[in-house]
């Protein structure tokens, strides 16, 4: 009796395994990896919210197929991100992996996914390697290449005829990329180039040094919590009125509620802002605010686009997920209602897109938080600096 039960279980298990791939063919599975825990978990929350909103807008069917999105937490660590990606590929047998905030995590995850013959749709990190030599036909991104945003700020400050600029960033790979991107377009005199410790919370010592140097303007890259500390202390030290502050990835809809008036007057460059005028974006922003009660942030907007990009690919091949060539061809056309408006893909599968100058201005409601407002485009149809190194031709 006991033996036959066991045999039955084994039989069931085998049948289950055999049935799984067959079922998977009829269903679209997307593995979405982001940071959901720890201090950076707030970014992942915005990305997940935006994916859910995209699913709502598509009637929970991406490309007309029954869709399951599996969320994975990379805990801000490359090795964990890779493990999660492996699990998505082997256990869940997803057809698309998407998400990823951090460049170092992306560099661990993207090769794992594309080598398994699966699509990787990046929705934030844009390390230069993936735009250049490491480009891959299965890799697409709905964000930007890291250097592009600081390039736009460098261009703007150059055009303004600014000189004697003091530049600062955390001392790690992306910090150096940001400052080198800035210097690619800014040719004026740089008073000093200062790198601070990654994750530093107190900038008072650096700010005292800055004041003593009397620069004409300041450019910084301080993402997340570092930006909150920096902006507060910059205002508190009374530097706001003395030296105009320009930045990238420092003031956004996540940090503004924590710094409020200390962000006022801040200049940023970005490819997108909630007030960008196009029907897709207006719908996204309005519905996001209605569903979640807060402003969306660019991390989320890109993730929303990621799902729409997948939708356009699956629709083009009429749900035949085995037709990868067909899906690549479809995605290269970028035929979907993007939150940034119409754009084209470059040969390396990075968007050719506009970058705008943004300013933090007082919100519409009295006493409300400041909001980012587009001032003017800095670059139109801007290509990244690395696409020529990418061997892909199409």
């Amino acid at each position: 009796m006991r033996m036959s039960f066991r045999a039955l279980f084994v039989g069931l298990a085998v049948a289950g395994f055999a049935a799984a791939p067959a079922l998977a063919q009829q269903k679209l599975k997307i593995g979405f990896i982001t940071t959901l825990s720890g201090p950076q978990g707030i970014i992942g929350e915005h990305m997940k919210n935006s994916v859910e909103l995209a699913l709502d807008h598509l009637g929970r069917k991406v490309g007309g197929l029954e869709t399951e999105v599996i969320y994975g937490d990379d805990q801000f660590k490359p090795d964990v991100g890779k493990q999660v990606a492996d699990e998505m590929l082997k256990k869940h047998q997803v057809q698309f992996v998407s998400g990823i905030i951090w460049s170092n995590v992306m560099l661990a995850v993207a090769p794992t996914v594309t080598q398994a013959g699966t699509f990787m749709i990046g929705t934030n990190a844009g390390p230069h390697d993936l735009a250049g030599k490491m480009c891959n036909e299965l890799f697409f991104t709905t964000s930007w290449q890291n250097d592009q945003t600081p390039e736009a700020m460098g261009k703007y400050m150059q055009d303004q005829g600014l000189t004697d600029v003091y530049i600062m960033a955390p001392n790690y790979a992306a910090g150096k990329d940001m400052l080198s991107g800035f210097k690619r377009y800014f040719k004026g005199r740089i008073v000093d180039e200062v790198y601070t410790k990654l994750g530093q919370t107190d900038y008072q010592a650096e700010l005292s040094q800055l004041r003593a140097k009397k620069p004409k303007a300041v450019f910084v890259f301080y993402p997340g919590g570092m930006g909150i500390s920096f902006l507060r202390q910059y205002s508190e030290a009374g530097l706001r009125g003395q030296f105009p502050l320009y930045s990238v990835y420092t003031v956004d809809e996540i940090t503004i509620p924590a710094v409020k008036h200390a962000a006022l007057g801040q200049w940023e460059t970005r490819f997108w802002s909630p007030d960008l005028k196009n029907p897709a974006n207006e719908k996204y922003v309005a519905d996001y605010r209605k569903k979640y009660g807060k402003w969306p942030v660019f991390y989320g907007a890109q993730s929303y686009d990621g799902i729409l990009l997948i939708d356009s690919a699956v629709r083009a091949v009429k749900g035949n997920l085995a037709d990868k060539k067909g899906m690549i061809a479809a995605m290269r056309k970028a035929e979907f209602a993007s939150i940034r408006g119409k754009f084209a893909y470059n040969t390396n599968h990075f968007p050719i897109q506009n970058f705008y100058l943004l300013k933090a201005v007082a919100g519409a409601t009295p006493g409300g938080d400041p909001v980012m407002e587009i001032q003017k485009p800095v670059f139109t149809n801007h290509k990244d600096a690395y696409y020529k190194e990418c061997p892909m031709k199409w």
Partner: protein
Amino acid sequence: MNLILLLEQTLNGLQLGVMLFLMAAGLTLVFGIMNLVNLAHGSLYMVGAYLATAFFQWTGSFLLAVPLALAGTLLVGMVVEIVALRTLYERDHLDQVLATFGLILFFNELIAILWGRAAIYAAAPAWLSGHVELFAGLRYPLFRFAIILVGLAVAALLWYVVTRTRLGMLIRAGASNRTMVAALGVNIRLLYTVVFGCGAALAGLAGLMAGPIYVVQPGMGEEILIQVFVVIVIGGIGSIRGAVAGAFIVGMVDTLGRAFLKPTLATVLSPSAADTAGPALASMLIYMLMAAVLAVRPEGLFPARGGG
């Protein structure tokens, strides 16, 4: 190098030292007296910052929010001691590290559930915003100046309590020989709870003063905790005098290193070499200092007398 800048940076170093001291005092007492490695000390700093922000919003008065937040952190500290840590005193340090690490995760998630994962806005009161003109050419942020004054006052108060009161006598006795204190009929359990609660309140004080200038978000305590451990290793574990000395040494070395190491190196090396080496060395300085202290005086600069 101009004198006013040097003075301003010294004040910055002093201010960082004060914050580190408030954290280190509690941590070192708990380690010295209870022989407990408390990794969750940073969580109490976070609790202090969140409570102060919440009470400030609720009452609208910073002066009212401060005592409420301190009392709140004291209470949280005592409850943690009674519920979670009491059973750990006899266990070895690895068990304590694991358990208090668990507490860090618990507090971070609890705060994320209650307040959300996003950093929250913590304002300084209007009367503490702005600057003081210490003398011509040196304007210093008022809030930071207040931190220095409060920190020095607390250090003086602690010195008085530890050296001049009965509680302080018990604390000193507990730090040098716990078993003997218990054998003499002192209610050691109560002493532990009180000391832990006071340590928590000091961490809370540091947290509530950090709120308006740093970031109030889940996990904020872990960033400062590493430096605090460096402080107590340099100062000598279990010693208040060591915590004072260690905190000011670390505060000064870190601040002056960040400010002046690169320009100083640039006079010796090429500018590009100074650009690379300066920031890297500046962020390592306090750890190199710790290594040097450990090599020369493994028990720290001002070890607690007797030993447990």
